[in-house]
């Protein structure tokens, strides 16, 4: 059980709003970047992250305790994002070349990822398909196990392993195209 779980329990069981604030503080950026890997738009991802926290605060769902709080939170966030995509399917694909949005995403990257090497990889991921972005984000940046990533993405572990293999291959190709030496990353 991580800190998020205890903070959430304080909020849910005792009405301690500071518990929710702590969750937002600790998980906001990672959730936004993860949701950005799904919806391809950092601003939408931010809104969806906020929606995810509001959902936590209003519905107060119970964590079954099978995995980490982060895994559970990302699962909720993913469901929120998928609902959003279904609702606004036509407008869900927003160009990620938008300078302003890229700039915003970079600020989050800088705050959350910190390591320059990882930031370069994350930027290269923008050109990949949403599924590749998701699995790379969860495994490479969030350092979740294949099993945890499979839980969030609602896929089998074997499917995630396969997806991760193809995602890495695609990422390598992308990095090489942009002149980065993949082996050095």
């Amino acid at each position: 059980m991580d800190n998020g779980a205890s903070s959430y329990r304080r909020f849910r069981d005792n009405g301690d709003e500071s518990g929710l604030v702590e969750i937002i503080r600790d998980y906001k950026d990672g959730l936004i970047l993860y949701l950005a890997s799904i919806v391809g738009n950092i601003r939408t991802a931010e809104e969806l992250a906020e929606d995810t926290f509001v959902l936590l605060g209003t519905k107060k769902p119970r964590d079954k305790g099978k995995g980490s709080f982060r895994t559970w939170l990302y699962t909720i966030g993913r469901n929120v994002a998928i609902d959003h995509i279904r609702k606004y399917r036509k407008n869900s694909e927003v160009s990620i070349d938008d300078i302003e949005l890229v700039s915003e995403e970079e600020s989050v990257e800088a705050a959350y990822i910190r390591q320059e090497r990882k930031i370069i990889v994350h930027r290269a991921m923008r050109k990949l398909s949403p599924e590749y972005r998701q699995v790379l984000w969860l495994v490479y940046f969030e350092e979740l196990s294949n099993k945890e990533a499979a839980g969030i993405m609602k896929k089998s572990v074997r499917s995630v392993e396969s997806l991760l293999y193809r995602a890495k291959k695609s990422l390598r190709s992308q990095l090489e195209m942009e002149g980065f030496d993949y082996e050095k990353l």
Partner: protein
Amino acid sequence: MKNYEEMAKDVLHRIGEYEEEKKSRRSRRAVAAGAAVSLCTVAVIGAGLWRSGAFAPENSKFKADMGTEVTEASVTTGVVSAESTEAAVLTDIPQKTTNDKVSEVQAVSGNDYTETGTPGGTVTMQPEGSDVMSGRRIIYSYPSYSEASYASPENGTFFLMREVQGALDEYGSDENIIYYVVLDIFSDRHHILDNPQAVYKAEADRLFALGYTSIIETYTDQNGISTTVIALHATADQLRNFVPAENYGYAIRMHDEWKPGMANEPVSFNGTGIAVPDETKDIATSQ
């Protein structure tokens, strides 16, 4: 991009709004549920009272027992005078626009004669261009508490049955009151019963010429036996100043008989109880 504090503030604000809305919905639901429960309670009580007869008009029993209904008319009011403590049935008659001498042939409500037979038809003779029934009330029944035992009228005379006299006394000569009466016609003090149609037709023509609305009504019972009567729509003055033919005597009675025995119990009419007197056998006065 929002920092975490800004996002936390927005999230908590939205959660607060959600909670408020939830409370509001809950209170609205409670109010609606309360109103629904109240309505249901009122409906249940109302239905109970209705079924118990608390809302039924006090004269409904009287009307039901009378079972009388005039063609194209509806029973509307009944009045009891304090002096006579007798009741009557009044009917609003809709406007008739017939101008022909024999203006219409129509079926009469079967409700009128459920005991004696089914109607066979009616021939109404109404003065041309007149609109005598428009906006008027028709009185077709009045309690008499007497049995029909009277001396037969001699030729050239007539008399009003007790109930007709009672109705005239009560309702008077108002031109808006029409009395719906039936003529029993006698020849040499013998009631004309065999094949009276020709007599009735001649009488209808004669009375029509005198300004009455005369009606020949034929009813056929379940055994196929027909009964024909001649009826009048007449004002009080027309009744009091009835002009008999020289070769006939006339007993004039209300169109629908009403006797205390027709009700299963003493009836209350317009809130006034009707005292049922001892049975009398008075002969109605003739004029």
